[in-house]
């Protein structure tokens, strides 16, 4: 009797083993938009990423399926107009081409540029001015354990000087090499295109920072590296400075990713930016700092 009671209890507590299964959900109605992402930086050729957005459950995830072809894209200043052409570069890690529109003329400093895109009968416009000063990296270091909004993680610490007399927005960039032994976000890089060689990767921090309350002062940021490293792994660190349009865009992406992974956070909707409700994205000026070589101590 006692045993029967115990068995019945165990059966009755079957709910402890919650059931989990894949389901098909009715996709929400979605009207496709476009996304426009482009920085202009003095002394660089402008590049604009111009893609379709797709319904969330759409099978189109390859970059060649998302690129908007046959768009007329122009970046003009008071002096000149540059018509951008569709171009691509092969990404060995993703094993697919990245598509973008590339200009011909280098961007000038302290100049206002207007972006104009004509595609599928619609026009998208925005402007940006290349008047940002370059931040200066003072020093770098490394910490094995750091706690912040993103949890406990190792960190690359960068001290840099805020550009005075400007409202500035920053993020981190590291150029380094990687191979198949490198892990990205703790997952091995699996790519049939990479072979045994090494490639240059451009690691860009998702977090963005502003200089509110720290005008002209030294700032400290701690970045969780995306790619794994060994003792002696080298990388060139930059601090990107860009304008508010880019900051607003990347700040909401960062908050959205946090909410996407943390089930205790309310979802973050992408708000209208420079292009209104017609397109998602930004067109912004950027200015990189000079690089500092960083060597991982472990």
């Amino acid at each position, binding site marked *: 009797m006692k045993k029967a009671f115990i068995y019945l209890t165990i059966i009755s507590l079957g709910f402890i083993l919650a059931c989990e299964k894949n389901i098909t959900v009715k996709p*929400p109605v*979605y009207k496709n938009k476009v996304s426009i992402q482009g920085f202009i930086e003095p002394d660089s050729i402008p590049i604009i990423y111009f893609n379709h957005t797709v319904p969330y459950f759409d099978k189109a995830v390859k970059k060649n399926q998302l690129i908007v072809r046959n768009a007329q894209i122009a970046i003009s200043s008071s002096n000149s107009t540059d018509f951008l052409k569709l171009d691509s570069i092969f990404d060995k890690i993703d094993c697919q081409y990245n598509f973008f529109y590339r200009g011909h003329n280098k961007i000038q400093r302290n100049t206002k540029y207007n972006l104009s895109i004509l595609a599928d009968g619609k026009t998208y416009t925005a402007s940006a001015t290349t008047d940002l000063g370059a931040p200066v990296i003072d020093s770098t270091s490394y910490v094995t354990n750091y706690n912040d909004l993103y949890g406990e993680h190792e960190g690359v610490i960068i001290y840099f000087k805020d550009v005075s007399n400007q409202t500035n927005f920053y993020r981190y960039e590291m150029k380094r090499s990687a191979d198949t032994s490198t892990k990205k976000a703790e997952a091995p890089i699996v790519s049939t295109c990479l072979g045994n060689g090494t490639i240059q990767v451009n690691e860009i921090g998702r977090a963005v920072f502003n200089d509110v309350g720290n005008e002209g002062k030294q700032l400290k940021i701690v970045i969780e590296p995306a790619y794994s490293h060994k003792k002696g792994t080298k990388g060139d660190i930059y601090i990107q400075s860009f304008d508010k349009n880019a900051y607003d865009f990347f700040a909401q992406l960062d908050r959205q990713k946090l909410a996407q992974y943390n089930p*205790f956070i309310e979802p973050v909707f992408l708000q209208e930016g420079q292009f209104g409700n017609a397109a998602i994205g930004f067109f912004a000026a950027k200015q990189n700092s000079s690089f500092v070589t960083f060597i991982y101590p472990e």
Partner: protein
Amino acid sequence: MLTRFKKLVWLVLLLPTLAFAQKTTISGYIKDANTKEALIGAAIQIPKLKIGATSNQYGYYSLTFPTADTTAILISYNGYQPVAKQIVNKKSLQVDILLQQANSTLNEVVVNANRNEDNVKKAQMGVIDIPIRAIKELPVLLGEHDILKTIQLLPGVQGGQEGTTGFYVRGGNLDQNLIQLDEATVYNPSHLFGLFSTFNVNAINSVKLIKGGFPSQYGGRLSSILDIKMKEGNKTKFVTEGGLGLISGNLTFQGPIQKNKSSFIISARRSYIDLFLKQISKTTTYRFYDINAKVNYELGKNDHLFISVFKGNDDAAYTGANSLNYGTNFGNSTASLRWNHLYGNKIFSNTSLIYNDYHLQLGTAQNSYYQVLYTGIKDINAKTDFTATPSTKHTIKFGANYTYHTLYPGAISAKIPKKGNKVAINPDSLTKRYSSEAAFYVNDDYQLSENLSVNYGVRIPVFNASGKTYTNIEPRITTRLSLNKSTSLKASYTQMNQFVHLVPSSTASLPADIWLTSSNKIKPQTSNQVALGLFKNFKDNEIETSLEVYYKTMNNQVLFKEGTQILLNTNLDNVLTFGKGKSYGVELFIKKNFGRLTGWASYTLSKSTQQFPDLNFGNSFPSSYDRTNNLSLAASYELTKTWTLSADLVYYTGKPYTLPAGKVLVYGDGSLYDNYYYDYTNRNNSRLKAYNRLDISFSNKKQAKLFKKFPYEREWVFGFYNVYSRANPYFVYLGVDPATKQPQAKQVSLLPIIPSVSFNFKF
């Protein structure tokens, strides 16, 4: 001073009676003849004059009528044999009336010649008395009878997550329900991850839900009042009853301290599930207990003292599906000291001192993230309420209420550290938030004529926190127009204010709510509700029906801002966003009170929306507790004198949740995550699959003899929860197929078919 006050009160209250001469007032208590337990809501009527009254929550009644040589009065109460009495020409009379319980419901058709017809005769709307018998007979999860599960089957009430005791009334959030046990607020009325309520049915006398047309004595919440009264204890003999279920056992002991004058009841429940879980799981532990105790003493004819205490506590940890982990420790403690006093035979007063202490420490983890939250609430409450019946036509209630709140909330939400050292919250380190809440009210239930009555009043709440004071005037009115003897039309308007807020998380699958009080930044929630209802009884009140429509607007609703990640040093006032809500619907209720088949059917068609300037692009969206269709059937059928079959069937539209509509590719190598971002177009734009479930139970109840010598009443209950084992959705989360890189939706379900058996006894 007291004498002058009494005179003044009398003068005010007797003004309405001056126009009449020669009145007789009878008053007293209506009690169970065997236990001397107060009968709440018993009807006392004078059929010839077509007037009547009902006993209040302490069993007290007072009825004034024109003096005659003899007057016949009839006293009735559901499940009891009615009593008829003759009143001979007297000016006033104090009579305690004892009613005998009907032996079996099989005989009730005969004995209930005159049944309670409050639902058509009183100017009250949205009020449902839930018979304890119904709560005890309905099929239950794991053999545990549950008040709140029964509440979820009522019209206008929606259950929360699968299996939980949370309930939502007419589009309001959980915090908009004031749950009171002997007038003490119970902030978290749940056990076992919210699967059971903390209320031990054996210790409960009455349960009343008010969801609209609130009389002025009630306030402080926007959507409902759940008024639960504990038994007083048997005043004539010692009684022991208890039960053994699959997960817990309970024992109730009651009896006289001084026969017919004072009594006690003590009831305790404790889970033993932890003993079994030790054998099968190291990651899941569970332990809960609750204790109810009450003592009452009649100090004299006019004074009655009650002391009641309640303590419940849970300590649990649960590791289930990959995406779900949970650990909690929480408890409620309440203590009430109440004093009833009669001023003559027309004024009844109750003065209470109440203390409650609630704490919740909750740690939840889902995927690689965790949240720890702590809420501590301590309330000290003093209140005094008067009920005066100066004439046949008026029942006037007035009083005052003061509560001193101390809240200390805190929360952390973060990624689980690699070494697993999650941050803990030390309650002593949390900033305490102090506030005062007072309210004054007056309410008159006025019988304008036999066919027309109005219940009207006003409540004035005053709230102060951190130097900021909020006050308001809340008008309340409910009217009743009788179309014929068994049909009435009613309408009501109420305005409510609420100064404590439970900020809900719309995304978390497990409870992640934080209590806060109003402050400089958090304005009080307010609501305006209008309702219209048609009430009709059939077959001499055997069947009650009602059709109510309501429209409710709610202001200063609180939600977290998008993307808010709370850290220990986060000022919670700064991460909130405020908006408004709206709810409207139609509720149909059919209830059969007597006979072998009893039960009810309820159907609600409703819509609840919210609108926040900072959310959903400022557009209106379905609230998280919006359920378009909500159908509940609950029935109990006496197969024989010993066997009863009970069943309930529940169906409701699935819970809304937010799905991304589109995705956006964002270039930028090296991000810690993939480069696809969500394009949300509407909040709560998708719904979980509709929920439905059938539960059944068989009970066998009869008199037996222990060792063939000692008589006792015993009951076996065999039940099946979710008979057809439907995998109802608990929540849905999104992932990406690692092979195809395609998004996937995963549904987590709890509670398949669950058999149960329990044994109850009484001697």
